[in-house]
C-alpha cells in the first residue's frame, strides 16, 4: 500500500473538499461543494472581506467538527499517495490514540503484499459442523464490536441437505445443543476476496481496493460510510458500524494492521481481510487455526505445493454465486 504505482486518480481539490468529510458525513453532504472552489466562488463573493470572513468561518467550523481527530487526518492524501514517512507518522498517531483509549501498548503493522503471493482460501463443506468457533475467533482477532452493534465477519448458514446450497432455506440464527443437526449442513460465508470485486467498483471515494496479494482492504479513515459497497456485495460480507463499536481494553488485540484489525470508528464499513495482520507475516488466519474439524484451508494460489492448490487439484471445488462473475479467491470444496 506504500507503493506509488497504479495510483488512483484523485481530484486535486479533494483535500479541501474532504476537510470535513470522513468523520462527519452529514456536514459534508449538506455543504455546497461549489463554494469551495476559488474559481466558482468569485462571482458570488466579490467582496474580498466577505470572502476572507467566509473562509475563516468555514475553517473554524471545520476545526470544531474535527476535534479529537486531528487536522492532518482530514487534509491528508489518499493512503496510496502517502510517502513512507507520512504513513509512519499516521501510524504513530493512531497508536498514541489507542494507547490513550485502551491504556495498552499496541503495534500497527503496515506491511505490504508479499512478492509472488496470491492468497486463496478453501472451505470443506463436507467437514464443517457449524460450531461457530470461527465466528468468535474472528471477532477476538479482529477487534470487532462485541454488542450493540454486534459485528460478525463470518456468518455460518445452516442449510438442509435435501435442498442443497439454497439461500432461501438458509438460517444463520440456528440454535442447537449439539451440531451438526440431523439432515443439515453448514456453510460459513465471509468476504470472498473477489478478483472482480463489486464493492470496489461501488465505492465513491476509493476507500476500498484490492491489494496485489488479492486482499480487498478498506481505509477506515477514507470511508465516508455511504454503504454503497454493502449493497454492491452479493455475499453480505461488509458490515457497518451503526454505533460506536464496543470493545473492552482487555479484549483488544494489540497486534494490528493499518488496513486490517485496528479498531474502527463509528460510521465506517468493515470486513474480513484474511487476517491481513497474520497472513502477511506468514501465519494462518485465526479462523483456520481455530477450526476444530480442519475444514478451513489457506495458502498461496501461485505455489503448486500449497494446501489450497492441492485442494483445487484433487477435490471438487466451487465458488459461491459463480453466475455473478465476481471470481472469488474463496473456494468451497467437498473432500469426500
Amino acid at each position, binding site marked *: 500500500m506504500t507503493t506509488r504505482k497504479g495510483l488512483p486518480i484523485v481530484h486535486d481539490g479533494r483535500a479541501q473538499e474532504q476537510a470535513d468529510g470522513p468523520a462527519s458525513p452529514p456536514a459534508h453532504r449538506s455543504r455546497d461543494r461549489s463554494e469551495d472552489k476559488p474559481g466558482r466562488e468569485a462571482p458570488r463573493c466579490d467582496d474580498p472581506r466577505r470572502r476572507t470572513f467566509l473562509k475563516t468561518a468555514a475553517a473554524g467550523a471545520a476545526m470544531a467538527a474535527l476535534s479529537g481527530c486531528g487536522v492532518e487526518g482530514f487534509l491528508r492524501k489518499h493512503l496510496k499517495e502517502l510517502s513512507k514517512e507520512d504513513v509512519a507518522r499516521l501510524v504513530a498517531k493512531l497508536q498514541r490514540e489507542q494507547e490513550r483509549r485502551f491504556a495498552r501498548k499496541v503495534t500497527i503493522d503496515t506491511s505490504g503484499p508479499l512478492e509472488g*503471493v496470491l492468497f486463496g482460501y478453501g472451505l470443506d463443506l463436507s467437514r464443517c*459442523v*457449524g*460450531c*461457530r*468457533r470461527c*465466528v*468468535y475467533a474472528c471477532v477476538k482477532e479482529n477487534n470487532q464490536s462485541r*454488542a*450493540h*452493534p*454486534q459485528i*460478525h465477519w463470518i*456468518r455460518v448458514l445452516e442449510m438442509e441437505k435435501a435442498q442443497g446450497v439454497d439461500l432461501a432455506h438458509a438460517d*444463520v*440464527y*440456528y*440454535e*442447537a*445443543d*449439539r*451440531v*451438526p443437526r440431523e439432515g443439515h449442513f453448514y456453510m460459513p460465508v465471509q468476504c470472498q476476496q473477489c478478483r472482480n470485486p463489486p464493492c470496489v467498483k461501488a465505492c465513491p471515494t476509493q476507500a476500498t481496493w484490492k491489494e496485489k496479494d488479492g486482499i480487498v482492504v478498506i481505509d477506515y479513515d477514507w470511508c465516508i460510510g455511504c454503504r454503497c459497497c454493502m449493497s454492491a456485495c452479493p455475499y453480505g460480507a461488509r458490515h457497518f458500524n*451503526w*454505533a460506536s463499536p464496543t470493545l473492552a481494553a482487555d479484549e483488544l488485540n494489540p497486534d494490528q494492521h493499518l488496513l486490517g484489525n485496528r479498531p474502527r470508528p463509528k460510521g465506517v464499513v468493515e470486513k474480513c481481510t484474511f487476517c491481513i495482520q497474520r*497472513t502477511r507475516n*506468514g*501465519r*494462518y488466519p485465526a479462523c*483456520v*487455526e481455530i*477450526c*476444530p*474439524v*480442519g475444514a478451513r*484451508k*489457506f*495458502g*498461496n494460489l501461485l*505455489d503448486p*505445493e*500449497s*494446501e489450497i492448490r*492441492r*485442494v483445487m487439484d*484433487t*477435490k471438487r471445488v466451487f465458488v459461491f454465486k459463480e453466475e455473478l462473475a465476481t471470481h472469488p479467491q474463496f473456494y468451497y470444496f467437498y*473432500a469426500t
Partner: protein
Amino acid sequence: MKDWIRAACLVAAAAAAVSAGGGEPPRAEAARPAARKAEQLVQAQPPPFSEGVYPCSQCHDKPGDRTRRALGYHDEIQAIFDHDAEHRWCLDCHDVANRDVLHLSNGDPVPFTESYRLCGQCHGDKFRDWRVGVHGKRVGAWNGAKTYFLCVNCHNPHSPRFKGVKEIEVGGRSVTQPTLELLAPLPRPQRPEEMRP
C-alpha cells in the same frame, strides 16, 4: 563461407554439450523440494494420552496371551470399540512384545508419535490428503513451519468416526483430544432487532 560453416558447427557442438551436461541440475532440483519439506514438517502434536495411561509397560510388563478374547480390564475402551470390531482386536495394532509401541501389519514397530503410519496402511487416501494438508488440521505458518495434528488428535482410534474435540493438558502442553460427544455450537448472532438500543 567455410569459416561460417565452422562457426556454425562450433555453436552446435557447444549447444549439444550444454544439453548433455544439463542432465544433472534437474535431478539436484528434484531433491531440493523434498529437503525443504522435511525441514518444514514440524512434529505433530503429541498423542492425547489420558492421565497415567502411558507407558503401557507399567502394567503390561511381560508378553501376554495372543488369543483374541474379551478382556477383564480396559472396560472403557471395550465399551466403545467400534473400529471394524468384527474383524479386529487390540493386538492387531498394539505390539504384544513391547506394549509402548504399535506395529504395522508386517510387524515393524511404530512409536505412538508416528501412529499415522499405522492408520495410513488402511486409510491411504486420507493419509495422502493429510500429508499434503488437505485432510485434517495444521497450525503455524502457511508458508513455513507447521504443527501437524495426528489422526488420533481428532479421531479416537477405538471409535474413529469424528464427533468432537477438546483441549487437554499433556506434560504441560495443550493437546487436542477426541471426544465421544458432538460439539456444542457457540451462541447465535444477534438479530438486527435485538441490536437496537
